[in-house]
Every structure is written in structure tokens, then in C-alpha cells.
């Protein structure tokens, strides 16, 4: 058979299988991300069904998938929103970074990994999945809740922080050392600030340059611009993903709105390919030895996330039940953790990192949305009510006043 024919058959069968899996997942209220990862594990190296002809195609598709994930994330936020949010919620973001990145880094060092791998694992445990969490909040009807803005601003700060973290990691993994990493970070800071300033001042001019009238032209121009900037960013060693994110931020108004609608199906397609690719590059035989460490890391960093949400919500004046909802809502790690781990896999820094990251994301992304439901159960509410009553108990016989 001609190799193109095999490619068609393989990609077709793969996408169809993913579609069926996604449908199955929806029935159980499960995010498709873990299913795609598992599908990737099942195929490819050491898997049940080897993919021969389509691996290169899937690799390029995965690269585009990361870029589309990031540009869509950027399109969701406007530059002004990012800046005002940063002002209001910076302390929450800092708590989040410290409480969740440090355990990851410490855990890696404890396993005897190099510092580069520790930096990568720090990122993997730090960033919650904004996609999965936004979906869970919507499904549970919590978008109107008072703790929801707290959750969202933590996510926004994490996403923005990635614009600095990804270039740092990319540079460090390229073997330039810490000095080179800091240089890349400096470049990223200057670029991001410049893009934010330009987007706030001239966002409308940029967006006016791209016409909304013709959907086809809009799709091609936004996609072209994104891929181009991502490519240039990668060439400058600032990470393609960050380039795409910045394009998303720079576009605003009706262009951003329409581009989101047009790119969404493309994003769904290529993001699925991306998750499968990450699963493909992990050999299932490497998984069992890392399961226990991954579980330990997941429990540890889910507890720190709960604490993060609790503290951030307390800062915003939210009562105890809301604080727990915020904490339990932040648990799932997803697309970003896989993106970060993908960088590490490409550089070949630590062989155990990819299987550990896969297991870690699988555990958090499956258990996170389930745990997020906890505060809605009556027994949980009763427990909280009794607990607050007990805590308040001794405080009651205070002087009754004069």
C-alpha cells in the first residue's frame, strides 16, 4: 500500500476512535483529555496498535494543537482584563505559585532528578487546567457564585505566568544553563509587556486591519498570523506557544469573538491530536513504576491547591463553604501540564518525567472534577455546618455586652 493511503487509514481510524471515546466520556461527565491520553498510550511505541505511517503527521498536528490551544486561551482574555486582574489578584497568584510549584520541584529533587527536570515538574504541578475548570464550573451552575471570580483570576494569572515560564523552561531545556534561561526570561518579559501595551493602546487598530466580514478570510488570516508569530517566537527561542498566546491577547473585539468561533473546531481537532501524541510518546511499560510516586504527588499537590483556593477566597471575603468550593474547584491539571511535559520529552531531560506527568495528569484530571462536586452534597454541607458550629461553640459565652 502507498504510505499516504496507510496514513489516511490510520488517522481516520484514530480520529473516529477518539470521537467515540469522547462520546463515552461525556456520558460519564468525564473530560476527554484523560481519554485522549489513554488512547495515545494504547497506540504507538509499546502500545497495542503501532502507528507506522502517521507518526510524523501526528507530531506536526500536535505542534499545531499546542499553538491553537494557546491562541484560543489568549483570545479569551483582553489585555486590559489581564492587567486589571493582575493588579487585583497578584497576591492570590503568588500564593498559588509558591504552594503548588515548590512541592513539584521538591518532589523532583527528592527523586534525585536534575534541577532542569525539577523546574519542569514545578510547572506541571503549578498550573491548573483552565479549560477543564471552566467547563466544570459551568456544568455545576457555579458561574454566578461569589468564589468563581477568585478561581478565574487564579487561572488567569497562571496563564499569564506561562508567558514567562515557558520561555524560561524552553531555554533551560535547550541546555543554555541558568544564565541563558534568565536571558530568555528577560526577553519574554519585555515582549509580553510590549504586547500588552500595544494591545491596550492600539488593539482596535490591529483588529480593524483584519476584516470580520468574510469568515474564510478571517480564519485564514488569524490562523496564518498565529502560526507565523509562533514560528518566529520558536526561532527566537521564546517558545511557539507563548507567541500564539500573545497573538490571541493582541486581538480584541469582534475579531476575537468571531475568530474564537471559527478556530474552535480546529482547536478541538488538533488539541485531541496533541494529547494523543503525548500519550504516544510515552511507553505504557514505563507507567507502573511511576504510579505510586505520581499518586503521592497528586495527593500532595491537590491538598496544596485546596489550600490555595481556601486562602485566595478568604482574601476575597468568602465564607467557609465558598472557600472549600474554590479550593476543590482548582484541582484538575490538564493541557498546560501536558504542554510543559511535552517540552521536556522533546529535550530528553529525564526519562521518567513523561510517564510520571501522564499518570499525574490522568489522576488529577479525572478525580478533580469529581472532588469539585463534593461541596454540593448534603452530607458535606451538614458536616461543614456542624464543624463551623463546633468552632463557634466556645466563642459563644463571651461577655454579653454591657
Amino acid at each position, binding site marked *: 500500500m502507498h504510505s499516504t493511503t496507510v496514513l489516511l487509514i490510520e488517522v481516520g481510524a484514530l480520529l473516529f476512535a477518539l470521537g467515540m471515546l469522547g462520546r463515552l466520556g461525556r456520558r460519564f461527565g468525564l473530560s476527554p483529555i484523560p481519554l485522549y491520553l489513554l488512547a495515545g498510550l494504547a497506540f504507538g511505541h509499546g502500545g497495542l496498535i503501532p502507528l507506522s505511517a502517521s507518526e510524523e503527521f501526528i507530531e506536526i498536528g500536535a505542534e499545531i494543537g499546542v499553538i491553537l490551544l494557546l491562541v484560543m486561551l489568549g483570545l*479569551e*482574555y483582553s489585555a486590559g*482584563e*489581564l492587567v*486589571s*486582574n493582575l493588579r487585583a489578584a497578584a497576591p492570590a497568584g503568588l500564593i498559588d505559585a509558591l504552594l503548588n510549584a515548590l512541592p513539584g520541584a521538591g518532589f523532583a529533587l527528592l527523586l534525585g532528578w536534575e534541577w532542569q527536570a525539577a523546574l519542569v515538574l514545578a510547572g506541571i504541578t503549578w498550573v491548573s487546567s*483552565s479549560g477543564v475548570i*471552566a467547563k466544570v464550573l459551568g456544568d455545576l*451552575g*457555579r*458561574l*454566578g*457564585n*461569589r*468564589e*468563581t*471570580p477568585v478561581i*478565574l*483570576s487564579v*487561572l*488567569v494569572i497562571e496563564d499569564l505566568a506561562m508567558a514567562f515560564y515557558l520561555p524560561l523552561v524552553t531555554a533551560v531545556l535547550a541546555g543554555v544553563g541558568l544564565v541563558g534561561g534568565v536571558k530568555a526570561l528577560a526577553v519574554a518579559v519585555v515582549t509580553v509587556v510590549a504586547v500588552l501595551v500595544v494591545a491596550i493602546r492600539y488593539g482596535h487598530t490591529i483588529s480593524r486591519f483584519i476584516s470580520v466580514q468574510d469568515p474564510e478570510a478571517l480564519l485564514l488570516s488569524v490562523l496564518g498570523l498565529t502560526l507565523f508569530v509562533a514560528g518566529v517566537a520558536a526561532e527566537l527561542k521564546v517558545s511557539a506557544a507563548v507567541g500564539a498566546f500573545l497573538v490571541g491577547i493582541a486581538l480584541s473585539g469582534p475579531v476575537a*469573538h468571531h475568530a474564537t468561533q471559527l478556530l474552535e473546531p480546529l482547536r478541538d481537532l488538533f488539541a485531541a491530536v496533541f494529547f494523543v501524541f503525548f500519550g504516544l510518546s510515552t511507553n505504557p511499560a514505563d507507567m507502573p513504576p511511576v504510579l505510586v510516586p505520581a499518586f503521592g504527588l497528586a495527593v500532595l499537590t491537590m491538598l496544596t491547591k485546596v489550600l490555595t483556593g481556601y486562602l485566595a477566597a478568604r482574601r476575597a471575603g*468568602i*465564607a467557609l*463553604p*465558598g472557600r472549600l*468550593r474554590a479550593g476543590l474547584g482548582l484541582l484538575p491539571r490538564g493541557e498546560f501540564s501536558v504542554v510543559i511535559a511535552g517540552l521536556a520529552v522533546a529535550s530528553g531531560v529525564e526519562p521518567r518525567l513523561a510517564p510520571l506527568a501522564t499518570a499525574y495528569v490522568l489522576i488529577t484530571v479525572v478525580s478533580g472534577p469529581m472532588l469539585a462536586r463534593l461541596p454540593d452534597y448534603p452530607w458535606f*454541607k451538614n458536616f461543614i455546618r456542624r464543624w463551623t458550629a463546633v468552632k463557634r461553640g466556645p466563642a459563644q459565652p463571651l461577655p454579653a455586652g454591657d
Partner: protein
Amino acid sequence: MTVRVRVEQTPLPGIGVRHDLVTSSGRTVGVVSHRNGRRDLVLYDVDDPDACLASIPLTDDEAEALADVLGASLMLGQLAGLRQQAAGLLTEQIALPAGSPFVGRKLGDTRARTRTSASIVAVLRDREVIPSPGPPFVFEANDVVVAVGTRSGLDGITAILAGDTDG
């Protein structure tokens, strides 16, 4: 209108914006406006004021209908508040007397506006408000008419509805 209500606006990055207000009865209601045009009416829990008890998605038409209903009853309240404000212009609720000749007849038949220069701006029926009834509107027993006009105009409408004048 004496006390202005404070509506709080909270941005929801990536989703849209939330507006909410606390009513004088202590309940909180809000609207989540999504960027894609969807909006949810949210009602907050009394026990846990941070959580919404219900989140009701409204289509464009439903939101408009709800706004209309609230707006119409609000307008009547304001009209009633106009009492004594505009020089000589009054608002009055006039119950249709049991023996009124206009039960089952059209509003146009009263020729109230022509004869008294007072206007019938709404009719209250079974606790419902029917705003700005037109001439083809048919009266029923127990209707209450809301009319705006001068003192003599309103007295004129009262008399017409009671059948005290010859039509």
C-alpha cells in the same frame, strides 16, 4: 424613587460579567452575562450567600419578556408615585362597580378620554397588570382601572364607569 439600589458589577475573566444586587428583603439576585450573548439569571442561597441556588439560562426573547414584565409593573408604580407631583395631574385606581354598564363592553365605548381628557393607562385584573389597553379592550367584572388626569377628569371617569352619565 427615593432609594437608589446598588448594582455591583464583577468581571469574570474569560466568561463575561456578573451584575448582582441585594434586595431589601435580604436576598441576592444577579445576572451572569456571557460574552457569547448567553445570560443566566442567578438566585443566591440564603444559608450560603456565596453560592447560587439556581442559575437559569435565558434566551434573548425570554430576557426581553422578563424585562418587559418588570418594566411594565415598575411603570405603574412610578405613575402612582407621580401623584401630587405634576401640578394638578393625578393617578387613581378606580374599581369597575358591580353594576357598571361597561362590564363586557369595549374600552373605546366609554369615550373616556374624549369626554374627560383623563387617560386609562392600565387595567389590573386578577393581580395581573394589563398595560396601555387599547380601544378594543373588553372590560370584565372586578377590573380595576388605572387612570391619569386632573381631579375633575378622574371624577368624570368614575362617573362614566358607574354609568351615572348618559353615554
